[in-house]
């Protein structure tokens, strides 16, 4: 019996070793084949090309750029563009999704039907078609001369959306954001340290009051000299000058991702609200809580815990969906990489950068969401999703 067991075990080990070496051989063969075909085209491998300048232009950048920038800077701009598009889209999609989830769980049948119509309309048409549709609409808006305007400060035309911005250096915005995020993380830590004492509450209050003051001071220090504080867009000749421009490519993608993602997140939120056990709500009712408090103190907190894993999933999906930006010419990471491949021929290296970047972005989203999930979990209460 012992020898039989032993032989089965060794058979299993042998089989696994065989499979492993087969996979390894396959990978080696692929690498060798690639080497050979690259050599045939006399291309050098390696990441040295990242320091060469690109010499080609692209449509949109969050940072100032020129066509003589290096490949590494251009790729960085691509990553930032993707992140900007992804975060704008995900943020708006979450807002729409919460609204739709609430509408769909309303007791009023006609009202909840409104939510159903929204979800079925935007979920059943491909995202890429929706992006093309909004792009066509936005680029066919009136010319700058007859742009739609809001109080002569915000202008919407076929060239994009123009709005006023502060004339302050870019680094200060990053500093302000960092301070704000640090403060948000500092608060729960302090609460644990000080055991919810009244001193903690006064520190919290002072902190919230001080925050805008600090922001204004930083902004004042970082003012670009000899410019007015507010940079207003104004019509000069055939186009607008000044202010910030949100090009139609970006707007169309943000609208498409927000509406499409909103439909999916709405379904997630609805499922979360419905998953709260009836007994919890009845218990709250029996304890004399008002309907608004039943919602805000019992139903919503439990629903948030139920939806976080599927919400993470949706965020990752939406982040991946930003790659369709290329179809209307938005210079996201994918478009930058595919242009780089065309121009430099460094296929494998660029592909590795593309895949690695998405891996890092998606894992970061999952990491942040999972740590929130762990932080807010209630001991002994198992969440059904």
């Amino acid at each position, binding site marked *: 019996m012992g020898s039989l067991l032993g032989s089965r075990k060794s058979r*299993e080990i042998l*089989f*696994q*070793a065989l*499979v*492993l070496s087969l*996979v390894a051989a396959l990978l080696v063969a*692929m690498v060798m*084949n*690639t080497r050979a*075909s*690259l050599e045939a085209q006399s291309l050098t491998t390696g990441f040295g090309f990242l320091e060469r300048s690109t010499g080609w232009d692209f449509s949109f950048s969050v940072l100032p750029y020129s066509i003589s920038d290096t490949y590494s800077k251009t790729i960085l701009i691509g990553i930032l563009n993707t992140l900007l598009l992804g975060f704008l889209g995900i943020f708006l999609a979450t807002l729409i999704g919460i609204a739709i989830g609430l509408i769909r769980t*309303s*007791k*009023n*049948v*006609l*009202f909840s*039907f*409104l939510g159903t119509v929204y979800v*079925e309309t935007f*979920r*059943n*048409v*491909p*995202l*890429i*078609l929706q992006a*093309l*549709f909004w792009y*066509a*609409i936005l680029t*066919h808006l009136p010319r700058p001369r007859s742009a739609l305007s809001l109080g002569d400060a915000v202008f919407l035309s076929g060239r994009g959306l123009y709005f006023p911005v502060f004339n302050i250096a870019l680094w200060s915005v990053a500093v302000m954001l960092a301070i704000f995020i640090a403060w948000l993380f500092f608060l729960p830590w302090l609460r644990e340290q000080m055991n919810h004492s009244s001193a903690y509450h006064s520190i919290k209050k002072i902190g919230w009051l001080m925050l805008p003051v600090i922001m204004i001071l930083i902004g004042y220090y970082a003012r670009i000299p000899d410019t007015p504080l507010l940079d207003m867009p104004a019509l000069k000749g055939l186009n607008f000058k000044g202010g910030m421009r949100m090009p139609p490519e970006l707007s169309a993608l943000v609208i498409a991702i927000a509406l499409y993602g909103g439909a999916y997140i709405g379904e997630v939120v609805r499922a979360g609200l419905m998953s709260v056990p009836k007994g919890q709500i009845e218990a709250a009712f029996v304890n004399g809580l008002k309907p608004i408090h039943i919602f805000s103190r019992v139903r919503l907190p439990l629903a948030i815990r139920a939806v976080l894993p599927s919400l993470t999933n949706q965020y990752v999906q939406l982040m*991946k*969906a930003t*790659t*369709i930006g*290329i*179809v209307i010419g938005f210079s996201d990471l*994918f478009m930058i990489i*595919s242009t780089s*491949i065309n121009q430099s021929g460094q*296929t*494998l290296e660029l*592909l590795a950068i*593309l*895949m690695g970047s*998405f*891996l890092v972005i*998606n*894992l970061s989203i999952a990491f942040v969401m999972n740590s929130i999930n762990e932080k807010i979990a209630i001991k002994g209460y198992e969440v059904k999703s």
Partner: protein
Amino acid sequence: MTASTYQLPPQSSFSRKVKDNFFASPFDCLVTLACAVFFVAIFYYIVDWAFISSIWSSEDEPLCKEASGACWSVIDARHRIIFFGLFPYEEHWRSTLACVVMVATIVASCVPWFWSTLKLSGLWIIGFGIFYFLMAGGVFGLSVITPERWGGLALTIFIFAAVSIIGMPLSIVLALGRRSKLPVIARLFGLFIDFFRSLPLLTILFTAAVITPFLLPGWLQGDKLYRVIAGFAIFFACYQAENIRAGLQAIPPGQDEAGLTLGLTYMQRVTRIQLPQAFRNSLPAIVNQFVITFKETSIVTIVGFFEILASGSAAFGTGKWTVYYIEVYVFIGAIYFIFVFSLSRYGAYLERKLRVGHG
């Protein structure tokens, strides 16, 4: 006398239901009213735009500038481009028939009578075979038409069907591999699945179309269309494998152990005990993956295929039709909607039905 002092329990009468659902409180009345006005306005606007004030025939195109509604003339004039792409004009009947056959196959596989491995695979091999030979020709005196000239709706349906027919068996293999008791095998399959799931579909299709010629020796490359379908199928299979795995994990371990004590082999346990229950457990998720896949076929337009989205853009790309982009997008959106909505309704129906079965 005493009987009349008892209050009857509230009846769920029609008027009671109406009150609860629409007019429970004064605020509710307001919401109902606002929604009703909104729906009537939207309905009126859409009907007016699409049907009443619209122009239908392609000869009436000059009237479109005056009309406030849709100009369906562009669809009347260019629908063949949208549906068939660059397929030879006199062979359009073949493309139509192929689409009908494939749609019939998809509909038939929704009928529970077909739900056995033999019937389902038979149905799909026959349906897909007929579709392929109608499109490609070369038999029964049909002229040969190479895949480069396929386009429009037929190409969309071909990609969807091919991805499904390759991806489904592959997903079962991947799911079983990931649940293997041998640690190296389970890790390898897990790594493979997670790798493909972490990437956007577009990067995989792009790699398959543009980059695999570097990776594979010449005799393995094949046509660009088949490389893209292979990449798409692997992506689909990785997602579907996770759905099947969830279904496998929901099976109580006693089921498999019972099979083991009865002396069933691994293959027997997998095909007779595990897979049937796994499919039953995660059927809604599996159908949902098909729904998503149908929508995602539109992404192949980026790697240069002339499927319905690209052929639609071509339909309003020339001459006087350039201003009628909204009509074309709405038309294509409606085609996608019909397919995706009916599939997703079917998924929701299955979900309800299976929930009843489980009690």
